[in-house]
């Protein structure tokens, strides 16, 4: 039944009420469930990683070694000239770990044939951006590896 001035019939009103009720119930169930499932544990990265000078001296020139920066796998390169460069080892394409190839002086990602040069710049293959690079500084007898003020390259992981 619908009286003239009314926007909807009584049946329409109650149908809406029932469907609305079910929709609210569904939302009430879904909200905690979604919040529960999408919980993310925060894993902050350390401000800096320190390595003893003597340890650095054991690395021959034109060689790279892996190290961990918090949860991030990283790679430390000692160039032919003895300069130290630190990068995230994660390829910017799909997060595989890259390796250093001394003969070509390039970082290579075996997953999809991606290449980065000695400075971590993407030069061939699918990687869309350079490797995330770290600042390498000195503090007394230790080498200090730290995140640059504004992260470069890496997609929001740091």
């Amino acid at each position, binding site marked *: 039944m619908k009286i003239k001035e009314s926007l909807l019939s009584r049946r329409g009103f109650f149908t809406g009420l029932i469907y609305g009720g079910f929709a609210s119930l569904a939302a009430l169930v879904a909200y*905690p*469930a979604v*919040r*529960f*499932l999408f*919980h993310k*544990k925060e894993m902050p990265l350390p401000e800096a990683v320190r390595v003893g000078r003597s340890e650095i001296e054991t690395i021959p020139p034109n060689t790279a070694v892996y190290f961990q920066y918090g949860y991030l796998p990283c790679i430390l390169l000692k160039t032919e000239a003895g300069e130290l460069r630190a990068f995230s080892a994660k390829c910017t394409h799909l997060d595989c770990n890259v390796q250093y190839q001394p003969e070509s002086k390039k970082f290579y990602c075996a997953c999809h044939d991606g290449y980065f040069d000695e400075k971590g710049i993407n030069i061939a293959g699918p990687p869309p951006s350079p490797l995330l690079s770290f600042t390498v500084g000195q503090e007394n007898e230790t080498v200090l590896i730290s995140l640059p003020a504004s992260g470069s390259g890496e997609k929001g992981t740091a």
Partner: protein
Amino acid sequence: MIDVIKALDERIKLGWMISLARHKLVPVHKHSVWYYLGALLLFLFVIQAITGAMLLFYYKPAAETARQSIAEIMVEVPYGWLIRSVHHWASNLMIVLAFVHFFSTLLVKAYRRPRELTWLTGMVMLMLVLFFGYSGYTLPYDERSFFAFNVGTDMAAAVPVVGTYLMEFLRGGDIVGTNTLNRFFAFHVGVLPLALLAVIVVHVILVQLHGMSVPISVLKKAETEKREIPGKPMFPHFLWHDAVNCLLLFGGLVTLAMLIPSELGPEIDLLKPAPEGVKPDWFFLWVYQILKWMPTYVLSIEGEIAGIVGLIGAALVIVFAPFIDRRAQRNERSPLFTALGWLALLVFVVCSIIGYLS
């Protein structure tokens, strides 16, 4: 929506299912209320599967991590306390309703021909649900879990002949430890859900095949009055009732979970005595109480072993009731089994209460 149903009907012929449901009549009489329990149990099973899978996202089943991971679920994960408490309360309600379903079926003797197989699958499910409950509350690996593990697996050793092997199988070694936890985790999330689901499918198909059982008293009364027992269509009438029941149950479940969230006991300390008044979960209190009453020796058999053998014997009489209760099989009144049914219910309730209060 209508188009989707039409399109599906064209491809997979939904029609027969709907017409089957429409033609299926549910008998209406004074004991009809017991017909509602199956749907409620099925609903709780679905809730357990969903909340259980959710808890698996964060639960870490190892002796060193289990309790801590549950503490994180309760404190850090948003609404973790709610999901775990719903899982906890749904399991308790499932056991309550499974027992109600069991006793009502026993007392109206719904196990009569041709439903013997339905009864047997039901008994298997009752045992699976109890094992579900037990394995579930060992998983937090707190103090309570530890003593539950010890007592429960030790009791398995009392089973004649294979007892020791059974205990070692359950423990994954001589003593309760991380191996035991892993085994019970595997039971709880792998073996039991698959087993229960398989038996549920058989049970539900059998119920559809036979229709609902009508109690002997109702049959006799209709016979003497020379009238048919009225029926209500399964679809949509009865399903609608089921839906409302499930909604009410869900409301009660969430309320319980909000007001009385599940607890987490202290960490296990191997060098600490069992806490005062440590008891099994409520659904095993009757067993606990009966075993407590057993004397040290019964006819030169160790009291506990005698008690467990006695309980297994009583359980077997109930499991095989359809094959022993000849009178009910002929659709005649069978006062002996009615009395036994009430006695079983009485023992269950009274021993549980005494066990709880003592």
